[in-house]
């Protein structure tokens, strides 16, 4: 078990700059080291280490959602530099797949987008289906990708029935024992978990990532 102090002491320069939200410095370091011929995968790992530290600082109450968003933006900029240098398929061999979307009828995207950024930063392979996603579209993507995790987002009370409907569709498709399901949103509570029959709920994006990490371990 590595504690957070040790993690911070062992940070690479890129990880440290990202953890400190130094946007220009991260971009410059990534660009220079790519130009120097370094392995893109090792740079990606360093960026992920930085995101990991951001997550630790969030859990410790030092960082808030705005710092998560800014770190996600910096991570995205780094990925834009790194990805074109990666070989096809490189980096996704080990990644756990997550199908994600805002449920049918609900057009709110912000919470779902935040979770997508955080999941990518944590090394998950995310299939983001967008907003107002019908149950069958979730099922089709789960079948196509073989993803073991489904994340559904919704901000309104009528969305709870759409979540339930999607869970039913997953069951009808014979996938329920192969897929762990989490729902998220500002007003989602334990009553919603009970109503929809999902495996977990959360009101917090980073907790959503922790839940997906736990699911990934359980499904291996």
């Amino acid at each position, binding site marked *: 078990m590595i504690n957070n102090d040790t993690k911070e002491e062992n940070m690479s320069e890129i990880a440290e700059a990202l953890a400190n939200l130094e946007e220009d410095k991260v971009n410059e370091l990534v660009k220079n080291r790519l130009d120097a011929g370094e392995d893109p995968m090792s740079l990606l790992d360093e960026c992920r280490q930085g995101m990991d530290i951001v997550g630790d600082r969030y859990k410790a109450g030092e960082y808030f959602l*705005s*710092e998560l*968003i*800014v770190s996600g933006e910096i991570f995205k900029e780094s990925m834009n530099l790194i990805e074109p240098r990666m070989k096809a398929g490189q980096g996704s061999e080990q990644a756990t797949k997550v199908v994600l979307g805002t449920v049918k009828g609900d057009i709110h995207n912000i919470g779902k987008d935040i979770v997508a950024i955080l999941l990518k930063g944590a090394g998950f392979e995310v299939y983001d289906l967008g907003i107002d996603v019908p149950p069958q579209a979730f099922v089709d993507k789960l079948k196509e990708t073989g993803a073991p995790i489904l994340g559904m987002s919704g901000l309104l009370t009528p969305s709870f029935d759409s979540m339930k409907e999607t869970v039913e569709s997953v069951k009808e498709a014979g996938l329920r024992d192969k897929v762990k399901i989490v729902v998220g949103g500002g*007003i989602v509570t334990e009553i919603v978990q009970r*109503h929809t029959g999902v495996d977990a709920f959360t009101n917090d994006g980073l907790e959503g990532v922790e839940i997906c990490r736990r699911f990934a371990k359980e499904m291996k």
Partner: protein
Amino acid sequence: MIEETMTSEERIMAAVNLEMPDRVPIAPLMYQFVLKQKGMPIVPLAGGDPANWPKMMDAMKEMFDELGGYDAIYAAGVTWPMSSWRINSAPAGGYVTPGDRGISRDFSVQYEEREVMTVDDYDTIIDRGWNGFLSEYIPRASGISLEQLDAAEKALLAIYKENARYWLDRKIPVMSGALVISCEMTLSLARTLPKFMIDIHRHHDKVKAALEAMIPDFIQNTIDDVEASGIPWVTFSLERGSGAYFNLKIYEEMFFPQLKKLVDAFAARGFINVLHFDTDWTLNLPYLRELPARMCICELDSTSDIFKAKEILGGHMCIMGDVPPSLLSLGNTEEVIAYCEKLIDVVGRDGGFILSTGYECPVDAKYENVRAMIDTVKRYPAPRSR
């Protein structure tokens, strides 16, 4: 049932003044729920066909009586009390109404956030103030002249005043005489939340200066609106500045000073300030002790810790809330009653509490749950410490 010795008006004002009313007052935010119950199309406030507004207002009156009545009305009926274009026409996305884009008619009205303001617009706000920015922005972005907007909103105000008169004649307070969207919420809606967060990181001083530059016009516009409506209550829409989004350093430096300037200015004129907090503001609650005592209502939507709010703000400002939307939609009456009794026992102790829906009563709330919420305040007394 508790013997009632006060009018609704007296009961609400006792709660605002942190006194013990004859029973806990109740002021649910009811709109879409009523439309759904009465089989009407779900539209936003001041939305849909204006020809339907009288019927919608009748539905509000009928539902009020069917549910046995409550102690205050949030917005007077089917519109907001807007008299000027200056605040309510802030640049923003738009509403998506159930039935649009194939979305089920059983859904709620949704707000679609779009990036409608640029980073350069902060400079215009700094240079020209809020009204100066909007008077240039609105015609450019919408093609509507300010004169057209003024005429449209004067018509809305006339309807609002007529609807408010109905409740006031029944001695039911109307809790909105003007609507203020907080400065940070206004900019966040116009830039989108993620962009606004990134703006603060990249252009900290510019955003701060823009927020400060908005204040003089926000104060004067609101005073104008209150004078036009004749109702000395200001409703604040507060969501985006909370600890659910931003660290307290940013809140302390950039957001809270603007809220304090607004509330101080309105309180000095005797206006009651309804601080409608959406999302989790638990971390920010201690700051509210710096606002004028007995001039504000801290209204929570069920995601903040209302019990903690009582500990922090009890004896300083009235607390309002917060029956969770999921409980009203999916719970049963026993669960609703148990939650309302807990609210009355803890937050209602010694007064200073108005029981309400957390945010708006959900469109798909169960009728029997709403009825149970209202009935509970009428039979379950709040405890006194002495």
